[in-house]
């Protein structure tokens, strides 16, 4: 028997566009009349897909449309999507801050939400008083807080300031205190919005560790929204993608992230001429790129096999001593490696007009997954052209070491040549 703790079914939420309060009375009356006759909300039919960039044709919009998923005990569920895709709305409905328009959610156990750290803290009150207040707001009982008080203060690292009003705290300290309280909540389902983005690196690490503890050791279910693919990859056991209020993907973390990256506007074309988000003097421009394997145009690379990227470049003038750089990133935009031509003592003379350049790997050192690369061209210290996310390509697993053994399979990373020896 599976341990379902959360079941979301056909969840929709409609928002009214524009000003609230003008002309709503007649709509209210209409709605009320419909509900008396036991009919559907008359305005829910006119709802349209939530697309920020398009001008609306109707007064109502779907912030969420027919969302369904189920979670088991102990799962960490990542919700990714662009701004305005409905992530926060979904969390708000699950945390009972606002009600859905259609559909329902069933949950087993207690739900606590951490959409903001330190909600309701009062600046005039001391850290001690605020821990109790904040804890109570989040649903803790007083004896619970009594029991955990020392660990909370320890975790926040503010033993010294227990009896100081919070208004004298630095903003970082306040965040730590707020998170510490929430971290010692023990709900069955924890809803976390992007709160880990605040605080210093040490604290973030601590926070991520704490969340892992909560799910692994205590077997609690966590719903987690983040734009940081790195923390999603580290924390989540399952992800879903929300796009314009609809659930477009639900499943494994690795695939989800790749799909999200592939679908985002970050998806690159081979043609670079139309890119206008480039940086540099523009005296030399990257025009397009192609993936070449064994002389043929391909669209994916294989680990351990040769792979070249061929660039077409157009230049406004004649240059000499130009260096090029290509930087590789994994799907969650984590930096992997940069290959600068001048680092291997290769600089080029460029003719006015079109030039062709080739970058190549003898043995592609990337494991399976989707990769993104940046392109840059330098004339000494002058940046001629620099394109973030100039291109992306997929890699399939291959035999890098010629031994049939692939270390760390399933993780995105690089292979390096190395040696082991016994002396």
């Amino acid at each position, binding site marked *: 028997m599976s341990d*379902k703790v959360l*079941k979301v079914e056909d969840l929709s939420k409609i*928002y*009214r566009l524009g000003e*609230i*309060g003008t002309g*709503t009375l007649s709509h209210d009356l209409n709605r009320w009349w419909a509900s008396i006759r036991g009919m559907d909300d008359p305005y829910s039919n006119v709802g349209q897909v939530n697309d920020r960039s398009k001008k609306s044709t109707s007064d109502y919009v779907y912030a969420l449309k027919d969302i369904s998923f189920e979670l088991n005990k102990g799962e960490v569920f990542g919700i990714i999507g662009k701004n305005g895709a409905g992530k926060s709305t979904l969390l*708000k*409905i*699950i*945390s*009972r*801050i*606002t*009600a*859905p*328009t*259609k*559909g*329902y*959610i*069933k*949950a*087993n*156990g*207690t*739900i606590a*939400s951490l*959409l*903001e750290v330190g*909600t*309701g803290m*009062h600046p*005039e*009150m001391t850290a001690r*008083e605020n821990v*109790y*207040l904040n804890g*109570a*707001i*989040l*649903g*803790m*009982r*007083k004896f619970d807080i009594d029991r955990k008080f020392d660990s909370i203060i320890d975790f926040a690292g503010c033993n010294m300031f227990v009896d100081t009003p919070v208004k004298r705290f630095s903003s970082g300290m306040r965040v730590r205190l707020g998170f510490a309280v929430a971290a010692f909540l023990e709900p069955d389902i924890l809803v976390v919005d992007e709160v880990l983005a605040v605080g210093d690196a040490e604290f973030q690490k601590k926070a991520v560790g704490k969340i892992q503890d909560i799910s692994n050791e205590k077997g609690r279910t966590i719903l987690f929204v983040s734009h940081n693919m790195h923390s999603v990859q580290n924390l989540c056991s399952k992800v879903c993608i929300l796009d314009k209020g609809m659930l477009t993907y639900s499943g494994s973390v690795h695939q989800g992230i790749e799909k999200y990256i592939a679908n985002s506007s970050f998806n690159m074309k081979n043609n670079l001429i139309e890119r206008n988000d480039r940086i540099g003097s523009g005296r030399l421009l990257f025009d397009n790129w192609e993936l070449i394997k064994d002389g043929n145009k391909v669209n994916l690379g294989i680990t351990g096999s040769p792979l070249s990227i061929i660039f077409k470049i157009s230049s406004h003038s004649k240059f000499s001593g130009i260096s090029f750089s290509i930087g590789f990133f994994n799907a969650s935009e984590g930096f992997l490696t940069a290959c600068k031509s001048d680092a291997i003592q290769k600089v080029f003379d460029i003719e006015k007009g079109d030039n062709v350049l080739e970058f190549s790997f003898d043995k592609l050192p990337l494991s399976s997954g989707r990769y993104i690369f940046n392109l840059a061209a330098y004339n000494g210290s002058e940046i001629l052209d620099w394109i973030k996310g100039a291109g992306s390509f997929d890699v399939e697993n291959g035999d890098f070491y010629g031994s049939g053994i692939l270390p760390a399979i399933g993780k995105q990373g690089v292979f390096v040549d190395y040696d082991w020896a016994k002396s």
Partner: protein
Amino acid sequence: MKDWTIYIKPKRSLFQINIKEIWEFRDLIFMFIKRDIVTLYKQTILGPIWFFVQPVLTMLVYIFVFANIAKLSTDGLPESLFYLSGIIMWNYFAECFNQTSDTFSQNSQIFGKVYFPRLILPISKIFSGFIKFLIQSLLFYIVFFFYLITTDLLNPSSWILFSPLLVFLMAGFGLGFGLIFTSLTTKYRDLKFLIQFGVQLLMFATPIIYPLSSVEGKLRTIMNFNPFTHIFECFKFAFLGKGVNNIEGLIYSMIFMFIVLFLGVLIFNKTEKNFMDTV
């Protein structure tokens, strides 16, 4: 088939008020009361003395304006005591009403981020108002005992035993009206402007600065419809021995209060589900 402990759906029946949940969050009520009391006079020189300054000043102004200039009757009672009893009782109602009537707009920040039974906040306001009321009534008792011992103007009766009920009625009215108003103002903000001066008008329509006995005829009949009339008259009769006290009036007030409170909770309950989208 399977027991789900939490069920979130679009519409909730009007009468579903989760008392059990409120009980589970009782510590939060306590924390909010503590917050209200502790932070009220932080960084003030006089601190809690402010609890007394306001009613004393109001009393002095009333004595000056209503008793000395307008020459309104105080039923032969000491002016200070007559006004003070009215002011402190009315203050409690006004405090409850004002504090609860902007529950939604004041706390939209918290409500937007975390869930707890929303009724917790107005309820906690009633209690923190009650603590303020208790402190202020000390003032009343001091003056009361002073006159009781030094003069024979006062004639307290066993109705004093009813005074907790009177306070309860005031709290109920404050909460009930507050809940109704806060629910309505989330969408139609116009009502906010009504509240301030509405409370003031209501005060003048209630025998606080004058005794009911000084009102005659048709006006008296109208005033009998004001549920507050009976509460204040009963209070004055109980402690001071003067006032038009009748049990029917008190029962009328009580029924009135329960209807207002019931309506308030109902509307509040309906509003709390979606107010985040309209506030």
